[in-house]
């Protein structure tokens, strides 16, 4: 038997923009076990419920993560709206869908770029981030903020997207689609990319199910689930099917996310075509929430759960976010077993880790 040793990985690592620490037990070059230790970004955001009322908590929820910021705000607001039992205006639902899908596109493009950086394809990285800037421009145009734009409020949204901006979004996603096709070819057909991704870090469907994997990470292993099917925001009006793959390797994860990019564009087109003309953007809420609700939202990284428990006071009693990366951590540890040490950086990236979400 080869000699076992423990190699610390992270928290400051060139591949990772965020700190996570793994203790890798290795036998020669093979990883036998990976033990994560988290907490470098733990802020204790959930404790702020004592100091901020339920309206102000929207802004705290949005700052859980800068990448899926809009979706965090939406998830929290939907949960509180459920407790109130109010229906938000139809147009606000569509606007939420549009912003959520723009957010998903920028998140997936960001991930594709980081992945390309991970396997050393610098040009591809820059191309992805160049395309991503167009999406960020859309977000800035419609809301005023590039990443964190605070347009959610309990009861609806606070900003409208006028018709000319919707047209700009449509023309921009046409451009983005054309450019994405080139990027897609490189990611899926290029020999060098395939040699780094195919058959690396395989997670079977059974493993993924037992470990509770969520989002594209789970769908790449064949788990057919997408929380958008639950029909929050305007998703009941939109036709789409979850994108799944059965291989469960890094290549499948890449494939799934690229598929979701095109799906997001499709959803955007459908939403913009069906958006109703209304001037009302938010239903006014009266009083304080009383009750509890588990809201499930499909984030770019997977299923996120927002639990809000309120007791009729302005300050909610408990607000908890279970983020997708938290659910994917066990899957990551399982996947890292029996892989080469040199692949670790890449494999950690393939779950699309969002550490600030995880630790809140």
């Amino acid at each position, binding site marked *: 038997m080869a000699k076992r040793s423990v190699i610390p990985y992270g928290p400051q690592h060139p591949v990772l923009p965020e700190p996570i620490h793994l203790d890798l037990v290795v036998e020669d070059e093979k990883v036998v076990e990976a*033990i994560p230790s988290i*907490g470098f970004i733990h802020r204790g955001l959930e404790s702020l419920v004592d100091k901020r009322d339920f309206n102000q908590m929207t802004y705290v929820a949005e700052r859980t993560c800068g990448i899926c910021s809009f979706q965090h705000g939406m998830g929290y607001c939907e949960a509180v709206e459920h407790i109130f039992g109010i229906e938000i205006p139809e147009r606000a639902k569509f606007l939420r869908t549009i912003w959520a899908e723009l957010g998903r596109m920028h998140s997936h493009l960001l991930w594709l770029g980081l992945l390309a950086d991970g396997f050393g394809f610098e040009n591809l990285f820059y191309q992805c981030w160049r395309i991503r800037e167009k999406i960020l421009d859309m977000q800035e145009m419609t809301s005023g903020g590039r990443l964190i734009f605070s347009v959610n409020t309990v009861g609806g949204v606070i900003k409208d997207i006028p018709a000319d901006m919707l047209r700009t979004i449509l023309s921009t996603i046409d451009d983005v689609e054309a450019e994405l096709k080139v990027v897609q070819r490189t990611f899926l057909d290029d020999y060098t990319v395939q040699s780094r991704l195919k058959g690396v870090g395989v997670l079977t469907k059974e493993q993924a199910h037992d*470990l509770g994997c969520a989002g594209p990470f789970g769908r790449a292993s064949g788990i057919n689930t997408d929380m958008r099917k*639950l029909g929050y925001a305007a998703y009941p009006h939109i036709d789409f099917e979850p994108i799944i793959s059965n291989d469960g390797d890094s290549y499948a994860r890449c494939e799934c996310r690229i598929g979701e990019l095109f799906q997001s564009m499709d959803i955007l087109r459908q939403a913009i075509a069906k958006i109703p003309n209304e001037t009302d953007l938010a239903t006014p809420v009266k009083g304080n929430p009383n009750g509890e609700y588990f809201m499930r939202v499909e984030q770019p990284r997977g299923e996120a759960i927002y639990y809000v*428990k309120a007791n009729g006071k302005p300050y909610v009693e408990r607000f908890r976010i279970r983020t997708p990366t938290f659910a994917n951590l*066990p899957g990551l540890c399982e996947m890292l077993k029996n892989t080469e040490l040199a692949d670790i950086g890449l494999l950690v990236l393939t779950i699309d880790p969002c550490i600030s979400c995880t*630790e809140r």
Partner: protein
Amino acid sequence: MAEVIHPEEILEEIEASALLTKVMEKKKDGYRLSQICAAYIDEKYELSYSFADDETYQYVTYRLVIDTDVEIPSITEIIPQALFYENEMKELFGVKIKMISLDYENRLYRIRQEAPLGPKKAEKAE
């Protein structure tokens, strides 16, 4: 118009002693552990164990309401992936859980304060 699946969510209050059997049942039925959440409300812990079915989107939550000094068994024997949730509850709320497969001993987040979201007593004692 796409099909919307919106099953009714089930919330069932159970005794601490029934936890393991219920969890075992759900695992057998093919549910996946979706989340475990703790809350400290009215000087009692409220623990919610949620299970989700990937095909029907059914969501089942088991609720345990226990006193702060009650020790509950870990479910990591049945569902290993629960260890992060249980370590989190233990560290942030001070819930007493025995036999976690990989116990971080309150060193998951490595915070300085003891059980910041749990009983306020712990804060004063520090």
